[in-house]
């Protein structure tokens, strides 16, 4: 059976001069439609490289990525990325940042008025319509990340790729955005692949957590299914036995079996 998103025996080696660094070794992973999958691991373990390969921004050395049975080898809007540092274009307003994506993806299939409405709709989804005429420099970090999310959602991607989307935010804003992402996933049923280094975030949001060993030559160490019913509520889940068990498993993996080694 072919899965929706299939990452197949992926190897990645970076060559710098005559020094070769193996970053990923034999990474295989399947994601079903509508699933929310997190990839967790210590920094430097190649999580972002893996996501960039799925996005098509980096080429794999061996192996490949299949999306709906078709090979992925270049970037495209069917795999929209929410970048760690928002990556909004600072000379465009919030509206224009999203509109640029909408125009590019639906330029041929939607009329001007439809594209305008679709842009506003997506800003509504992330509760950012109120700031649509502001420039990125005039809104907070959390808001920028929301706009980045709206831009990605507006492309109607087959897979939404989140690269540590909340990494640069303070704890309260992060929790708020996590709730928003959960609600959006519930509502839209996107397939999501998220990179994170936050154990609670991974357990709260994911259906499955992919734990990666330390680099170089990082592999998938363990995959954990989070059997928690949705919708999940942050406060209710916090005392739930399954939640705590999952959290414990991830913590054990990260801090006992695959402890972070300095300058590994």
């Amino acid at each position, binding site marked *: 059976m072919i899965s929706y998103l299939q990452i197949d025996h992926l190897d990645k080696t970076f060559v710098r001069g005559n020094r070769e660094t193996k970053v990923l070794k034999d990474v295989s992973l399947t994601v079903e439609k509508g699933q929310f999958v997190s990839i967790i691991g210590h920094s430097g373990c190649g999580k972002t490289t893996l996501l960039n390969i799925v996005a098509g921004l980096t080429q794999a050395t061996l192996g490949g990525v299949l999306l709906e049975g078709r090979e992925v080898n270049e970037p495209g809007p069917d795999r929209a990325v929410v970048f760690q540092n928002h990556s909004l*274009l600072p000379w465009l307003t919030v509206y224009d940042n999203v509109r640029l994506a909408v125009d590019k993806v639906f330029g041929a299939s939607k009329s001007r008025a439809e594209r305008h409405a679709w842009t506003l709709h997506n800003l509504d989804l992330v509760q950012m319509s109120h700031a649509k005429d502001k420039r990125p420099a005039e809104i907070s970090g959390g808001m920028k990340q929301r706009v980045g999310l709206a831009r990605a959602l507006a492309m109607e991607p087959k897979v939404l790729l989140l690269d540590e989307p909340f990494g640069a935010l303070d704890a309260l804003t992060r929790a708020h955005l996590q709730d928003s992402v959960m609600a959006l996933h519930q509502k839209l049923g996107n397939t999501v692949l998220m990179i994170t280094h936050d154990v609670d975030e991974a357990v709260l949001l994911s259906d499955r957590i992919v734990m990666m060993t330390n680099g170089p030559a990082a592999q998938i160490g363990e995959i954990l299914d989070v059997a928690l019913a949705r919708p999940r509520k942050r406060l209710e889940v916090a005392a739930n036995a399954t939640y705590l068990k999952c959290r414990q498993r991830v913590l054990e993996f990260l801090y006992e079996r695959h402890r972070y080694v300095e300058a590994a």
Partner: protein
Amino acid sequence: MNMPMLKTDPQAVTRAPSATVVPLNPPTPGFLRTRILPAARTVAVRILPPLVTICVLLGVWQVLCMHPGATLPSPSRIWSDARDLIVDPFFVAGPQDIGLAWRVLTSLHRVAIGFGFAAIAGILIGAIIGQSVWAMRGLDPIFQVLRTIPPLAWLPLSLAAFRDSQPSAIFVIFITSVWPIIINTAVGIRNIPQDYRNVAAVLRLNPLEFFWKVMIPAAAPYIFTGLRIGIGLSWLAIVAAEMLTGGVGIGFFIWDAWNSSRLSDIVVALVYIGIVGFLLDRLVAGIATVVTRGTAAN
């Protein structure tokens, strides 16, 4: 060059006098006190210092050049010699006897054409060099050598090629101002953050869309630095080029005045050139502020 520095100190200076006036205000301050006085104070703070400096300099100059054997004219002498040039920049008294504003406009016209071509070519070539490592490796060493050639050294060659003074002068403007535009554009484009390139890649922007929607706005601050240096250089070059090519123009006017020993006219022309050069620089800087509003990443 000293204008930007003067601009910064009004804030520091306005604080002190305002403390002495405000307590005297009646409960319902009149229009004069709330609007006119502060405005007048700002003007005074900005205008007075340069005005005083100019008066002092003119005074010193007058004293130095007043004695009978002086080689250069004193300000009062210039006023009496070249009064028509100073008071009416737009007079037309004959085919070769016209106000300095007309001559400046002729020179500006040449600069506009030459600099316009330089801006277009410079930004395009700079974009190619900034984008392609091989174009940079191939062209950058050549440009680094060519850009050091003084503007006037190009003039004989361009006269030989074009066989006419007008296109030759324009070519000299072009070749002088194009290098800083190319180099700054290339640097700006090389410095476009990888994030923006990733966004463009995910959106599958084609090269033309990438050029207009990402490259130009992202590199705009650098491009305008290049344009500003470029316009300064073209103004330097046009005066020199016109001295040699002749015709109408502020550069030729100076040469002509030298040949007929009208030193006072030369001084007036120098003042014109300085002011126009300053205004050109301000103009490009002003456009840059408007265009690059919001381009700074954060």
